[in-house]
């Protein structure tokens, strides 16, 4: 990541994004004031366990939240467009055109009633005044690009005739039809086999590099994050508890939660076979009602009284984290601060 | 709140009826629109047995003789005169110059062919009773025929002026009953221009109608539609798309009459008699069969308040009847034992018969569910528990013929034949429908039926009727009436024989 890029105006700037879901039993604070920037060509991975609010964050950027979810932010700026204030029409011209999205389930994210070709062509013709033939040509080109052989003949096929891996390639091709500047991929490989996962990920990485597209990749898999991300955001209970360049976050995880997560997974070479794995006791707290202090304190081994109060932002940009302990209690775990 | 809702809805409905005026009848098109309740299976009058069929028959065809429905005087129609030349032979002189609707000229051949066809049982005329008294007919000359009866049959004149109508020989031989049903051809005052089986008939005035005692038709066109639901009929009447409905139930007729001059409601008695038939002969599988006991049969007779039923349910011209025949019929003497309403006595008789707590019996009916229900309620009140079964006519008849009907409410209309034989002889002569099988009654009825001497007939019918009443074989109930409702545009005076006569209808 060059210094130049770091200083340039970010493509996407998020400040204080908050998502509230009114429920019968109170307001669910699903996302609680998160900040991040994304520059052109950069890949940001947001990692977190289920219920941490990472998928909602992606939908919030796309403006595709359910009607009952309240969205607010100080800044939600995409290349100068204020996404909060944008009209429906403005959002429509952005979606699929400059911001594309890839969803988790390749089996269900394509419309079963239409051919691959129809759906690819639609993605382009919604935003570009091109003929059907031109659009089909572009579709064939992109299908080949995502590694689908005999692309022209695939256009007439229906989604159900393709395997999961192929469908996800089609979804990626569809996302690329309008040459977007930002791709949001929400767990794009979770539903796939490990072998296919690697293929799809490398495809995504290659294509974003080649086309200089920024990407937000949402996942729960730390392995994926480590291999793909330029920047990492660790999300817990609706807050980004640690952000920073991938190498730093994995090399020197500052937040106790980040470290806890890394200890939980068996790592060949690091974890001894058959040895006890690290655990994070307890479960994610309820986010219904007022959430005070650090949400991780109920599970944190380093909890102190101050965790109930205001949590300071620690670290130095670009590597920052939220913790009352100045070193994120790294020292307490016997690791170099 | 519900009550209020009900009230407003009910009021709205009532008002909707009351405030809606009556559209003008279709007088402008000279078309009278009539509703039938039942589908007519076949317009050929020998192949249907319904009242609607009789109406069609009187309009489309002519009989040899005609009985004036008011004076009961026999007049010549297709025959101009007739004479018994022996006990079993009637010679008739025919009217000349009559043509059928299809242009064929009427002659003795038509009479011979018609009679010889319908009199043969295997040709399957629906109501055999109407025709099976005839042996054959023979031509004397072009305008004279002789009709031979099987037995001595004094009611022949009555039958010839009723159900026996004359068909065009050539045409009938060609098309048969079903062809006649679809495209009827007769000599009558109206010719049929359209038949949609079971649904719709259109009649047109026969401009060349001969000088018949029926009178000349006045209304040019008659459209008859089958509308099964009485409400729908009344609705159509309200909306002005019907001009005449008949067989309107008493309650509705009363309400329509109360609507002032919007409609003309007339009521006439009919020959239909309602009665309870009991399995006195013990043919049914009921065991023990209480109806074999005269005391039980008498109890049934005493249990029912006929007057209350007549006054409240049938109304109009209906009367309590004590005989298995209609009082105006020849030979139908009303001077027989009567059983006035006396539930205490009924209970007493039941106790005497060995049923102090009453008994249970199936109770069948095929029409007038409310009358049957009222009767059953009276029977229940004295301890005769009825298991009510409403069957279709044909199904009940089938059961009847098998003899498996212990107790039933039935009716008989005598085909408007004004002779006691048309009813009492139908049911008490050991036929399959006879549930009494009294040899004495059979003997007397045979004498009466086969005599040409009115006094003898009267005497023996009276004997039979008296015995039937004494033995309480039946519990005769009441005679029926018919309500006719017309728009004020239509001038029509109904007759007591429940036949619509289009020739007597006029526009006001």
């Amino acid at each position, binding site marked *: 990541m060059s210094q130049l890029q770091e200083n340039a105006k970010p493509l996407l700037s998020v400040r204080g994004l908050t998502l509230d879901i009114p429920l019968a039993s109170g307001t669910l604070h699903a996302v609680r004031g998160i900040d991040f920037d994304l520059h052109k060509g950069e890949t940001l991975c947001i990692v977190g366990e289920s219920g941490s609010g990472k998928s909602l964050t992606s939908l919030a950027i*796309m403006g*595709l939240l359910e009607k009952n979810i309240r969205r607010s932010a100080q800044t939600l700026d995409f290349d100068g467009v204020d996404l909060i204030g944008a009209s429906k029409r403005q959002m*429509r*011209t952005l*979606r*699929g055109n400059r911001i*594309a*999205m890839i*969803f*988790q389930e390749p089996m*269900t*994210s*394509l*419309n*079963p*009633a*239409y051919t691959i070709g129809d759906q690819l062509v*639609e*993605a382009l013709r*919604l935003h570009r005044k091109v003929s059907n033939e031109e659009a089909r040509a572009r579709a064939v080109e992109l299908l080949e690009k995502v590694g689908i052989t005999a692309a022209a003949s695939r256009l007439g096929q229906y989604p*159900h*005739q393709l395997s999961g891996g192929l469908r996800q390639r089609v*979804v990626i091709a*569809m996302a690329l039809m309008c040459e977007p500047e930002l791709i949001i991929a929400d767990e794009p490989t979770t539903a796939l086999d490990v072998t296919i996962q690697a293929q799809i990920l490398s495809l995504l990485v290659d294509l974003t590099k080649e086309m200089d597209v920024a990407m937000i990749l949402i996942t729960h898999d730390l392995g994926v994050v480590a291999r793909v991300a330029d920047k990492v955001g660790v999300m817990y209970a609706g807050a980004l508890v640690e952000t920073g360049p991938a190498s730093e976050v994995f090399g020197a995880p500052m937040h106790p939660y980040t470290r806890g997560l890394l200890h939980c997974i068996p790592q060949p070479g690091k974890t001894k076979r058959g040895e006890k794995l690290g655990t994070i006791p307890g479960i994610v707290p309820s986010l219904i009602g007022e959430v005070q202090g650090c949400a991780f304190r109920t599970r944190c081994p380093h909890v102190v009284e101050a965790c109930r109060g205001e949590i300071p932002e620690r670290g130095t940009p670009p590597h920052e984290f939220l913790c009352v302990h100045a070193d994120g209690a790294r020292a307490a775990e016997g690791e170099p601060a | 709140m519900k009550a209020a809702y009900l009230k407003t809805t009910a009021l709205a*409905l009532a008002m*909707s*009826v009351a*405030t*809606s005026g009556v559209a003008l009848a279709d007088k402008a098109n000279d078309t009278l629109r009539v509703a039938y309740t039942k*589908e007519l*299976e*076949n317009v050929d009058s020998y*192949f249907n*047995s319904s009242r609607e069929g009789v109406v069609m028959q009187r309009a489309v065809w002519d009989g040899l003789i005609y009985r004036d429905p008011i004076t009961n005087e026999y007049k010549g129609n297709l025959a101009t005169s007739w004479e018994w030349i022996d006990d079993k032979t009637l010679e008739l002189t025919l009217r000349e110059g009559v043509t059928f609707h299809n242009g064929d000229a009427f002659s003795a051949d038509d009479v011979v062919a018609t009679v010889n066809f319908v009199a043969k049982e295997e040709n*399957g005329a*629906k109501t*055999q*009773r109407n025709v099976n008294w005839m042996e054959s007919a023979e031509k004397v000359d072009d305008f004279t025929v002789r009709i031979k009866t099987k037995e001595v049959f004094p009611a022949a004149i009555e039958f010839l002026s009723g159900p026996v109508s004359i068909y065009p020989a050539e045409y009938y031989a060609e098309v048969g*009953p079903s062809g006649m049903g679809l495209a009827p051809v007769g000599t009558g005052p109206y010719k049929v221009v359209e038949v*949609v*089986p*079971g649904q*719709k008939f259109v009649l047109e005035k026969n401009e060349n109608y001969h000088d018949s005692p029926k009178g000349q038709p006045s209304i040019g066109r008659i459209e008859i539609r089958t*509308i*099964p*639901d009485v409400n*729908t009929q009344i*609705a*159509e009447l*309200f*909306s002005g*798309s019907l001009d005449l409905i008949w067989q309107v139930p008493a309650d509705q007729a009363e309400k329509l009459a109360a609507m002032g001059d919007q409609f003309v409601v007339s009521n006439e008695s009919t020959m239909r008699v309602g009665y309870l038939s009991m399995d006195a002969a013990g043919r049914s599988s009921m065991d023990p069969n209480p109806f074999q006991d005269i005391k039980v049969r008498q109890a049934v007779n005493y249990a029912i308040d006929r007057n209350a039923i007549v006054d409240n349910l049938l109304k109009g011209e209906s009367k309590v009847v004590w005989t298995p025949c209609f009082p105006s019929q020849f030979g139908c003497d009303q001077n027989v034992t009567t059983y006035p309403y006396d539930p205490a006595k009924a209970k007493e008789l039941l106790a005497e018969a060995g049923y102090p707590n009453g008994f249970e019996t199936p109770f069948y009916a095929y029409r007038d569910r409310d009358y049957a229900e009222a009767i059953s309620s009276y029977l229940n009140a004295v301890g005769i528990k009825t298991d009510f079964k409403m069957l*279709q006519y*044909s*199904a009940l*008849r*089938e059961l009847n*013929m098998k003899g498996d009907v212990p107790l039933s409410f039935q009716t008989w209309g005598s085909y408007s034949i004004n002779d006691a034989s048309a009813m009492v002889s139908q049911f008490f002569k050991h*036929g*399959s429908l006879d549930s009494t099988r009294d040899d004495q009654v059979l003997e007397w009825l045979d004498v009466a039926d086969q005599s040409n001497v009115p006094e003898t007939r009267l005497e023996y019918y009276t004997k039979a009727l008296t015995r039937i009443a004494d033995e309480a074989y039946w519990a005769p109930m009441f005679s029926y009436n018919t309500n006719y409702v017309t728009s004020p545009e239509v001038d029509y005076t109904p007759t007591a024989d429940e036949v619509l006569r289009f020739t007597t209808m006029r526009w006001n």
Partner: protein
Amino acid sequence: MLPFILKRLGLAALVAFTVSFISFSLLFLSGDPAAALAGETASGEDIEAIRRLYGFDRPMLVQYGEWLFQALRGDFGESYYFKLPVASLIADRLSVTMTLGVCGITFALLTAVPLGVVAAIRPNSIIDRIALFLSVAGQAMPSFWFGLILIVLFGIKLRWLPPSGASTWQHFIMPTIVLGYYAMPAIMRLTRAGMLEVLNSDYIRTARAKGAGEGRVLFKHALRNAIIPVVSLAAVQMGFMLGGSIVVESVFALHGAGYLAWESIARNDLPTVQALILIFSMFYIIFTFLADVLNAWLDPRMRSS
């Protein structure tokens, strides 16, 4: 496609065969057709003769076989009551019933599908509640009662429509509404449920993420998929409606096949009843078959393997 159609047809034929056999056996138990045929004054011998003449004395299976053989050639025998060939009798009446059925299902679809769609787009809105009330009320409203009320209101009070009969298209309006209203609730509910499910599906999110407008999302992407089960249901309802038009036809004095069926039951006119049961079930079978074919065409997953 062809093997699918053939297989489906075979199944349909088997169903029709079974239905006809069941109804034949039912009616066979119903009593003596000979007695009904013989008429008023027939004696026991006459009935016996008729029984032999018509072959009623043979075993049921033989009679059924013969009936089936004749029926396959389009000959359903002669009506006991009208003494006319049953086939032509029914053919006369069927047009009314078919017209009514087609109008009824069209009315039901034209009201139920838009209502269902709107209700699904805005669940718990006023329109959703109205639609739900209409459907619940529709299910609870006896059709004879509804018909009578319409007659009073539109036939007598307002005089907008003729109360009964079948001579003009206006005559069909009220029966259509009554019959259609019978099928509407189920179709509306299914459309609503289907739309709700489809609108929550991933591919709708994908379509939105592509930048498709709401109209396009609803009609091109959602409705196409939500309508597939509705097609089947409409076919089933159409079949039910033809069989269920008895009440409506009797209220509105429409001389259709349903009314004929009722009257024929009343008259013990067995050949007619038997033929009508078969024809009504054939209609059901044909409609569901057509719906399956249409579904296979609408749903590519069924079209190809």
